[in-house]
């Protein structure tokens, strides 16, 4: 079905933009691409709403060949331009698709402009596996702890975004929609922070594809109770990492994330009260 393919490609385009933003070195370009990724995520949300309302199935599958890895920024831009243009062939004549196309034509213009700035075509460090943290001197065991934490949490934040997103589309009250949006926004911030840190360490990689068993929620109450348990585990992981890392700046950052997880639990409790 064309809509299923379209949804998968939009999902990939959101990831493409976000991970390209994490991988690039120039801070202005990084921020611009992240803004584009957020626009793509909103497109994805509107598309999911439309498909759900029209009883058209969609899933979180991705092309097995889909990768965010490259040695050069320009090569990533070329891939993105190609993917975006291919996507436009699937758009139909509706206000939603018109909006998407209009946004993406502007994005294409920006990407083409980047290709004119030869200074941007520097080798990307995001995938070089160096595991070197430039901002502070970390011991090998600190680097290992940070590496494992980032792999674990990048996947978890992606999983949370996509599961809350699935639930939000199926929410039955306005307050449920608002609570899920808060949780999605929080996880976007964490995904961005961890993605940028992984790129700094040279270990940026896409999160694993979600199995439908992860997001096809049949028992919302159980899902929320499990989610609270998972948030408590995430808090514990943050607390352990904060304690294991001697660099004050990094340690404070993980304490800050840890504290944010506490409020997620409160939002989830509010959602439980709504059930």
């Amino acid at each position, binding site marked *: 079905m064309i809509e299923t393919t379209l949804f998968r490609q939009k999902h990939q385009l959101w990831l493409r933009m976000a991970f390209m933003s994490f991988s690039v070195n120039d801070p202005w370009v990084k921020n611009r691409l992240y803004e584009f990724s957020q626009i793509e995520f909103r497109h994805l949300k509107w598309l999911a709403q439309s498909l759900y309302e029209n009883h058209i199935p969609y899933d979180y599958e991705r092309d097995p060949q889909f990768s965010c890895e490259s040695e050069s920024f320009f090569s990533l831009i070329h891939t993105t331009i190609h993917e975006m243009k291919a996507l436009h062939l699937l758009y139909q004549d509706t206000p939603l698709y018109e909006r998407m196309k209009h946004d993406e034509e502007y994005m294409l213009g920006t990407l083409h402009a980047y290709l004119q700035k030869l200074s941007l075509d520097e080798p990307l460090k995001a995938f070089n596996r160096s595991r070197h943290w430039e901002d502070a001197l970390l011991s090998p065991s600190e680097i*290992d702890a940070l590496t*494992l934490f980032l792999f674990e949490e990048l996947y978890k934040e992606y999983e949370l975004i996509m599961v809350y997103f699935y639930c939000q589309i199926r929410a039955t009250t306005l307050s449920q929609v608002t609570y899920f949006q808060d949780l999605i926004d929080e996880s976007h911030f964490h995904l961005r922070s961890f993605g940028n840190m992984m790129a700094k360490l040279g*270990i940026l990689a896409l999160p*694993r594809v979600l199995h439908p*068993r992860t997001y096809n929620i049949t028992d919302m109450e159980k*899902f929320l109770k*499990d989610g609270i*348990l998972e948030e408590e585990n995430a808090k514990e992981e943050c607390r352990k990492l904060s304690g294991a890392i001697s660099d004050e700046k990094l340690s404070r950052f993980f304490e800050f994330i840890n504290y944010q997880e506490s409020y997620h639990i409160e939002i989830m409790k509010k959602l439980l009260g709504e059930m």
Partner: protein
Amino acid sequence: MNQEIIEHLMHPRNYGPLENATGIGVGHSEKTGEFVIFYIETEDNNLKNVGYATNGCHDTVVLGSMFTEMIKGSDLNYAKAAAEKLRERVAEGPQKQQACAHMVLSAFDAAQIHERQRRNGSAEELFAIEIAMECEVESHD
């Protein structure tokens, strides 16, 4: 941490479902909601293809990636022996790793049971084994 582990974390091998799976098994914890789903495609007692997916931790991901790589293309007897060896090896390690390996290997066992059930006419989509061990065991210390 060696480079091989980093590669398994960045690009887990044999990750995702198989189109022509002959057996699908799940190892899961009802308590935490964690699972491993294992896909096998056998032909003449050989594991022609294998795949797995999980919502579990990095240890589960790496173990699943290494184990599937080890048994892909081998005969079933070799795969069963490899599973046993892995079980013995992690038994000496931390409890958390034991739980992760247990989930991967239970899913593999479940896939083989499912395949046998299918051959006997069952129409079930998969076979699931609930495991009592928890992957997050260390977090509650």
